[in-house]
């Protein structure tokens, strides 16, 4: 040891080592305490990223300890004083360091004496690297505690599983809506209201995605469906019926047969064919004209659309009076109405596709909401809930209100209040009951959107082929309702739902006015 500076350097090195070990131990205590705190927290609050949160504390604790270690630099005087005390140097080093610039009669001798004694001592021993027994015990206790908390069943697991299932359910519902949007966009049948439909679906998709729960997401579907239904033209069925009657009437005439086929294929082609027929009126034989006039007159009588009826009537009378030009003009008016029908059908088709998408979303969300209500939310994801045996029950009563349109397409919006005290197991939570709604409307033309729903005499593998311009099979209401009612009641019988809910389904069908009762 050549000088006091060398002593200080050696002491500083030893002190850094000892401090490093001490701060590492502090960091370890902090990290384990953090993990234990997180383990306690996740038992009180459902937190999904618990592992990340727990692990986060380790680098943070290490960083804080490292920063403290870097910042803390004991002064040379302190190092010397501590070395004096710990090595029994009788304040030689601290005195020598303090008076290193002094030149008193004994200062040189004192420094010489201090350096000599320091040379004989093991300076690193002044700052030994040792584990604090208290800290080690604390780390062990905290580690065991945290491990036990990690291994023991956590009641929050079921809540998390339910949340996960809810999210999956909402994602699927949102995807169903997105699929409907894509389907409408790719249909190749543009309608003037496509943009509005897309906007409604877009909003519904966003609300479903952002909803706190499937039940909240469900609440956004009904308004969207109502908005869509407002886009549908209620006069379309009448116009369709008129067009079909026209096609039936023309099919019996030689001149109008091709036009009848075209109208049956789709209104747009029918319109073109009717225009062609109008341009050929001059060249028709009197017999064909008379035959055509009668067919048009018959179609006019059957037409439910007033404009169509007027145009057909005018065409018929003009033909009978030999005014081919007026007849051609009237037929061109009919063609324009067929073009309009095509647009209305396209719109209805898009609305139907959109509602089907929303209904698909509703089914998934409703199923998940029911599972949540029964305290089985976690079952939507296989294996998502590690707490086997946890179960709960919920009950509730609901009141419903509904809206319907003239097409007999009803949607319901249910709100309910229910007991929140689910019982059983460790985590089941009861929730609200469910409500039902019913819609009613004039059954002038029966059209029901029942995707994949087979009608009597038709197997599931043999779906009804889509009609011209149709997106879903169209069947008469009377043919569908019985099977629909039966299927619904069978489903309620097979599901674990309260009897009151089952009665609600029966009541719904009875309110529809059908004479058939459930078996």
């Amino acid at each position, binding site marked *: 040891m050549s000088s006091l500076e060398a002593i200080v350097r050696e002491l500083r090195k030893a002190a850094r080592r000892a401090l490093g070990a001490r701060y590492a131990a502090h960091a370890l205590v902090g990290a384990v305490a953090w993990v234990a705190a997180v383990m306690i927290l996740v038992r009180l609050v459902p937190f999904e990223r618990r592992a990340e949160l727990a692990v986060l504390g380790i680098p943070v604790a290490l960083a804080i300890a490292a920063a403290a270690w870097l910042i803390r630099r004991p002064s040379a005087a302190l190092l010397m004083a501590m070395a004096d005390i710990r090595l029994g140097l009788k304040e030689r080093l601290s005195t020598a360091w303090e*008076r290193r610039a002094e030149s008193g009669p*004994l200062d040189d001798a004192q420094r010489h004496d201090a350096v000599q004694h320091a040379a004989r001592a093991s300076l690193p021993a002044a700052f030994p690297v040792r584990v604090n027994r208290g800290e080690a015990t604390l780390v062990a206790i905290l580690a065991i505690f945290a491990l036990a908390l990690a291994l023991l069943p956590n009641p929050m697991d079921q809540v998390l599983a339910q949340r996960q299932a809810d999210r999956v359910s909402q994602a699927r519902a949102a995807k169903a809506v997105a699929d409907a949007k894509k389907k409408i966009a790719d249909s190749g049948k543009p309608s003037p209201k496509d943009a509005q439909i897309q906007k409604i679906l877009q909003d519904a998709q966003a609300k479903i995605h952002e909803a706190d729960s499937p039940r909240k997401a469900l609440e956004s579907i009904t308004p969207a469906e109502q908005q869509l239904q407002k886009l549908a033209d209620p006069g379309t069925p009448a116009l369709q019926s008129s067009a079909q009657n026209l096609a039936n009437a023309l099919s019996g005439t030689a001149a109008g047969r091709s036009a009848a086929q075209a109208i049956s294929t789709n209104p747009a082609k029918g319109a073109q064919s009717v225009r062609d027929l109008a341009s050929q009126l001059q060249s028709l034989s009197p017999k064909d004209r008379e035959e055509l006039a009668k067919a048009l007159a018959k179609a006019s009588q059957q037409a439910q659309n007033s404009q169509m009826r007027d145009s057909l009537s005018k065409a018929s009378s003009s033909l009978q009076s030999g005014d081919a030009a007026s007849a051609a003009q009237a037929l061109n008016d009919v063609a324009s109405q067929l073009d309009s029908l095509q647009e209305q059908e396209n719109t209805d088709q898009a609305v139907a596709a959109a509602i089907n998408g929303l209904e698909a979303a509703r089914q998934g969300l409703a199923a998940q909401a029911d599972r949540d209500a029964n305290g089985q939310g976690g079952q939507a994801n296989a294996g998502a809930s590690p707490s086997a045996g946890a179960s709960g029950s919920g009950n509730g009563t609901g009141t419903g209100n509904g809206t319907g349109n003239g097409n007999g397409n009803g949607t319901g919006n249910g709100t309910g209040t229910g007991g929140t005290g689910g019982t059983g197991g460790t985590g089941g939570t009861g929730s609200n009951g469910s409500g039902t709604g019913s819609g009613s409307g004039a059954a002038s033309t029966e059209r029901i959107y029942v995707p994949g729903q087979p009608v009597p005499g038709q197997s599931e593998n043999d779906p009804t082929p889509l009609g011209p311009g149709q997106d879903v099979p169209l069947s008469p209401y009377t043919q569908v309702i019985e099977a629909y009612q039966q299927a619904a009641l069978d489903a309620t019988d097979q599901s674990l739902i309260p009897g009151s809910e089952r009665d609600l389904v029966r009541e719904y069908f009875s309110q529809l006015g059908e004479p058939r009762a459930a078996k």
Partner: protein
Amino acid sequence: MIAEEPRVDATRVTELAQSLETELARLIVGQKALLRDTVIALTAGGHVLLEGVPGLGKTVLVRSLGQTLSMSFSRIQFTPDLMPADIVGTNIIGDTDGRREFHYQAGPIFANLVLADEINRATPKTQSALLEAMQERTVTVGTQTRPLPSPFFVLATQNPIELEGTYPLPEAQLDRFFFKILVPFPSEGDLLEIARRTTGDSTPQLKSVADAGAILTAQRTAREVPIAEHVLRYAARLVSATHPDRSELDSVRRYVRWGASPRGLQTLVLAGKVRALLEGRYNVAFDDLNSVAQPALRHRIFLQFEAEADGITADRIISEILEHTAKEPASK
């Protein structure tokens, strides 16, 4: 930075002290702490009050010290009828070339080494005759102040048990004493050795090992011993802790009437310096202060009556202070 040789040969102080102790130990059996404290006080230039029951060798110690030092030695036996002039001297009428005039007749105080035996037997008036001599190292008789020889060293003795007809030393007088050393009763082994040495046909003859010059040099050297700031602060904390209004110790607040004076701090530091030298060290350590705290402070702490009733001594108070005063390392 490190010099090859110190400019002041402090080892000579150590050797002097060791020689003194060795020589005194030839006559004084045991009592190592007594000898060490006495030598420390001598080297520091302070006066000593020796307290002990009769027969423990107090007077022998002082007389032996006089023999080992080639310096003038006086013994004053304090009695109730002793007058101040008997100590400091007086003016007497005498003939000088046929003329009668006053001449100053110096008292026994004019010596390097003064033994004030049974000092508490003299009246306060006589005791106070020592005040100026002990503090100023001068004597004023009439209008003339005369310096005392240097070094000047008073060793007083008093008996703590035979209190009838005695006059306890006033606080101001006590504070003049550098150390108050309690002379303990010898151990059984020491008693046997005392018997062997003093009941034979010969008594050990002590030789002189130092003169006044050596003692003065040692005193100057001792004052040069460096003391670190945090050690000095510790000494100050010790002294502060003896005051009931500053101490955190219940015993001090309850039993102490008045704590040590600043002179107590001076004594503590100076004695610590001397002890460091005697230990072969060139700096004052905490241990040095702790070691000299009892003799340096015990006569400077004045206890309440309640302390006497509870059997609490100043030594016990000092022990508690030493135990509870932190030796904080330097923080800068």
